[in-house]
């Protein structure tokens, strides 16, 4: 018995077979041709699932907060899928994916699907396969997807391109007023959380953040919630806050605007990746390899190499 084809797996995954969905996610991660095939098969499907991005620095409590949110999200949406990204080693390529440790024993059985993903060299806080994974989860009937980024710094904000609403998790003592006004992270959030709010400095962090957010001129008020995720404290208010944000954003047309720019950035990224794949294919090909060597030796200019690459791009697949 051979390995089932992508199309066979896709059919059974869409019918609700978890192991087929799981296998397809692995295939998407491993092979960009499979990823393209799935994207093509699912083209035309409406993006109907709500994607909530959860991002913030390492150790902020993203996974714990997701775990605490699950009982609320499944009460509102019946089922919840979680995609949790952790970093791959730039040295070994290996990864230690620890998000599930915080999410065990939710007691919600089949109503929750959790999948860990290693970033595999991507620098935007997500994995290359994440966008297609979301598309697949949507097609398989998961109405709500919680998308957890790896622990980010200031600019790994690809989550903005995929999430309908971005939740930023910070901790007391995270920074001062200058940190709060730096570009990047604080611009990306629609909802903010100060987790571990029982630690010293929560009020100051809130004040700094409030100050910075007040200058954002968002058409929908951006709220800050205090939580202690390990104790479930504040988690219900946060979930209500996320729902309120979505309602308000919908009312002023912000969601539609966000979805449009999300699609535009996604389109751009897919094209960029296809270009990257073609550049890699050229690099590996006999002709490309020789041209690259000539360029390194100084016999060929970079401009000539680029012209040759473009001339051969359509022939490489």
């Amino acid at each position, binding site marked *: 018995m051979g390995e089932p084809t992508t199309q066979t797996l896709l059919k059974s995954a869409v019918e609700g077979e978890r192991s087929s969905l*799981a296998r397809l996610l692995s295939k998407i991660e491993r092979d960009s041709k499979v990823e393209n095939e799935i994207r093509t098969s699912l083209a035309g499907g409406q993006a109907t699932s709500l994607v909530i991005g959860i991002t913030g620095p390492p150790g902020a409590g993203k996974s714990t907060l997701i775990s605490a949110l699950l009982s609320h999200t499944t009460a509102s949406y019946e089922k919840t899928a979680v995609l949790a990204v952790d970093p791959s080693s730039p040295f*070994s390529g*290996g990864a230690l994916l620890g998000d599930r440790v915080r999410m065990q024993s939710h007691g919600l059985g089949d109503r929750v699907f959790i999948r860990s993903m290693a970033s595999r060299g991507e620098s935007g806080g997500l994995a290359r396969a994440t966008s297609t994974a979301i598309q697949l989860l949507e097609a398989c009937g998961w109405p709500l997807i919680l998308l957890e980024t790896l622990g980010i710094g200031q600019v790994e904000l690809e989550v903005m391109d995929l999430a309908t609403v971005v939740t930023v998790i910070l901790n007391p003592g995270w920074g001062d007023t200058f940190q709060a006004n730096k570009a990047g992270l604080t611009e990306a959030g629609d909802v903010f959380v100060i987790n571990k709010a029982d630690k010293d400095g929560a009020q100051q962090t809130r004040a700094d953040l409030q100050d910075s957010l007040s200058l954002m001129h968002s058409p929908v008020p951006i709220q800050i919630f205090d939580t202690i995720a390990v104790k479930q404290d504040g988690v219900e208010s946060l979930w209500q806050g996320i729902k309120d944000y979505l309602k308000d954003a919908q009312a002023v047309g912000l969601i539609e605007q966000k979805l449009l720019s999300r699609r535009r950035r996604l389109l751009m990224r897919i094209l960029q990746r296809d270009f990257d794949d073609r550049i890699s294919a050229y690099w590996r090909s006999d002709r490309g390899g020789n041209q690259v060597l000539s360029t390194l030796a100084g016999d060929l200019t970079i401009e000539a190499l680029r012209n040759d690459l473009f001339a051969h791009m359509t022939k490489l697949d």
Partner: protein
Amino acid sequence: MAKTGLDGHWRGPTIVARALRDAGFEVIMIGMANTDDIVTSAVDEDVDLVGLNIGGHIDVAIRSIENVQAVRPGLPIFAGGTIPPHAAKQLEALGVEVYLSAQNICILWMPQSS
């Protein structure tokens, strides 16, 4: 990589997970887990290998091994820990290979993938 049973000794599974990471594996830690958690994780994460750290109650480990085998036949499972001799015999009866090292009994089991 899961820990069955109730004790909190994390050094063993953490060291093994770290060594695998450094060898280029993607290791999904699921922590202290019951049988259902182990089975669900093995399916949803589409894993190639299950690692169990066994301590104390051998029944949980045996049930986990049987249940994982039921949903993913042929999936290699490896396990280690401090196992008393009577429990090691129970595992041997399941086809587990038992290795002795110093005062602890280490267990390693790698059935052939079908």
